[in-house]
């Protein structure tokens, strides 16, 4: 199999590989008349605006089903941050950690296949199956931790909240990259790097929110999760850089 960093004359997407067709295309397009003045998509922007003005939200947050939940929710409504916003973002994190666990599983399959063939991986001494398995386990533990917190606060951890929906849409492409058999370990690590960057910012925000709501215990536990996520980010970033340099022949 050719690696995607190898040079061939096969890529047909650009214009320079087919100069005859490219010239004909340019001639036809230019002979069709002078360029119509570029409107910069103003009509498109106006039409989008009309839809945005009338749009319904993606969905809503469910009212707490338990008495404990209602009490907690009512008690803290008076403060600046509303608890339901915290619940929404917790559910987002739970969804992302669940997806992150699956992302690591997809990456492990790629690692196992590529580790047999690549000398670049050997140069990254801490890029091992054991390390990836541990990172996967930590993502799964974070999912369990967040679900437990949601329950402690009296909310339902099985609900898909609007923020959980949004993060699911935002991460679709990441899973497509890692689960495609044609993408390399380096390309997959780039998708994972994006996931870890998003994840880290998510934990930062949760800690700030928990602090604001006076949830000391949660703050402590989330700081430990953030410490692990920092390690994930540093490792994935280092592996990605190292494999990218190796792929370009710098090793």
């Amino acid at each position, binding site marked *: 199999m050719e690696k995607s960093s190898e040079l*061939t004359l*096969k*890529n*047909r*997407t*650009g*214009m*320079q590989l*087919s*100069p005859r*067709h*490219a*010239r*004909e*295309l*340019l001639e*036809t*397009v230019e002979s*069709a008349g002078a*360029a*119509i*003045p*570029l*409107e*910069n*998509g*103003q*009509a*498109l922007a106006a*039409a*989008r605006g009309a*839809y945005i003005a009338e749009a319904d939200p993606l969905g809503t947050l469910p009212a707490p089903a338990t008495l404990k939940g209602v009490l907690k929710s009512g008690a803290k409504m008076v403060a600046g941050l509303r608890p339901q916003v915290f619940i929404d973002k917790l559910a987002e994190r739970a969804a992302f950690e669940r997806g992150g666990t699956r992302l690591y599983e997809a990456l492990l399959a790629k690692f196992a296949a590529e580790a047999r063939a690549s000398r670049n991986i050997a140069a990254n001494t801490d890029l091992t199956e054991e390390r990836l398995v541990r990172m996967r386990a930590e993502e799964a533990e974070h999912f369990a931790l967040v679900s437990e917190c949601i329950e402690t606060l009296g909310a339902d951890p099985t609900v898909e909240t609007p923020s959980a929906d949004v993060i699911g*849409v935002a991460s679709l492409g990441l899973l*497509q990259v890692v689960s*495609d058999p*044609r993408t390399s370990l380096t390309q997959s690590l780039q998708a994972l790097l994006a996931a870890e960057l998003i994840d880290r910012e998510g934990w930062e925000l949760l800690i700030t929110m928990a602090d604001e709501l006076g949830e000391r215990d949660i703050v402590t536990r989330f700081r430990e999760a953030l410490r692990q996520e920092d390690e994930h980010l540093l490792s994935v970033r280092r592996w990605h850089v190292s494999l990218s340099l190796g792929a370009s022949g710098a090793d």
Partner: protein
Amino acid sequence: MALSLFDGKGTPLERQRFTWRELVGKPISKLDDDAFTRVRIILMNGIEAEALRFGHNAARMSAELREPLAAVRRIEQHQQTMVNWLLGADHSPLETTIGYEQVAIEVTAALARTEPDPYVAQALRFAMLEDFDHLYRYSALMDRLTGMDPNNILQCYTDILPGRPTSAEHRAPHDDLARPWDKRTAAPLTKLHTMTITAGEQQTHDYYMNVGPMFADPIARQTYAEIASIEEQHVTQYESLLDPTQSLIEQWLLHEANEAYLYYGCAQQEPNPRIKAIWERMLDYELGHFRLACECMKRYEKRDPAELFPEQLPELFPYESNRNFVREVLGRELELAKRGLDFVPRSDESRASIDYRAQLNSAGSPTDIVAAGYHWRPGTELNLRAVNL
């Protein structure tokens, strides 16, 4: 060497088998494979979808054909899977859409250039100019929604320019009908061409109806809604060219002959050896289906299928850019319209179509909105530098 439908035995039905691993093989490369390989995949997926659609409808109308149709349909289902799954997952729905419009332009143009019946050729050229405009509108959508260059998919084979404006293509239903050819006098090639284009347009319609709601952007959703409506009109036009007095078995035979004919042409022209092997295998399978349909015609209609087809079918159209032909037709026939079964100057268009269109467009046309002022440039309209060739 031209295809002879009656010489080759094809693969017997009982040996037409697949495994899941075979059905889901390696996809083509969006970047490295030739655009016409993708064109063939999209077309043949549509041809197989039509085989299933026709097979189900025929089974509902014929007790005696149910069993043989069920046997063939199961294989067509898996053939369609093997073909359609050749598209890699890095094709976004919008990129695949650009591929569908390239099929609609290049295949329709190729059929029109080789079509012996002048009225059918006119119908093909008429709808081709409309699909040509769809490519321009979807290209504007791709550029302005995603910042991607549609020419990465088209590979310079197909021009990106306005055709008959999509917003002017909406017609009253009866103006989309066409005059059918006569099964006794129509050339076999005319029959095959009509089958091919009807299948292709129906699949295009179904694809847009499936992916349209996957877009978040409201104007993308509207654009798919508007163009899917025209594809429904095109299916109406093309299927009405078919002689409705053909028997079910005659229609079935025509389907199988056309599938074999098209796979034969795919195999002849395919540069990717792995895909070529798939086309060859499919050709042998279709010849097996054709034989079964022939047996049914002899048994149930006491007719000789050889009456319907010449000894050798003509060579299939070449899969190549039809840029000059499209440009000529654009210059000559852009202002055509429909009035009942006739192609007429726009000034003679029916009142019903004018009124229908005015109502439908009364809150604006998304294809006008998305492409307002759009002028394709190499590397998207954001690229203001001239391209070096």
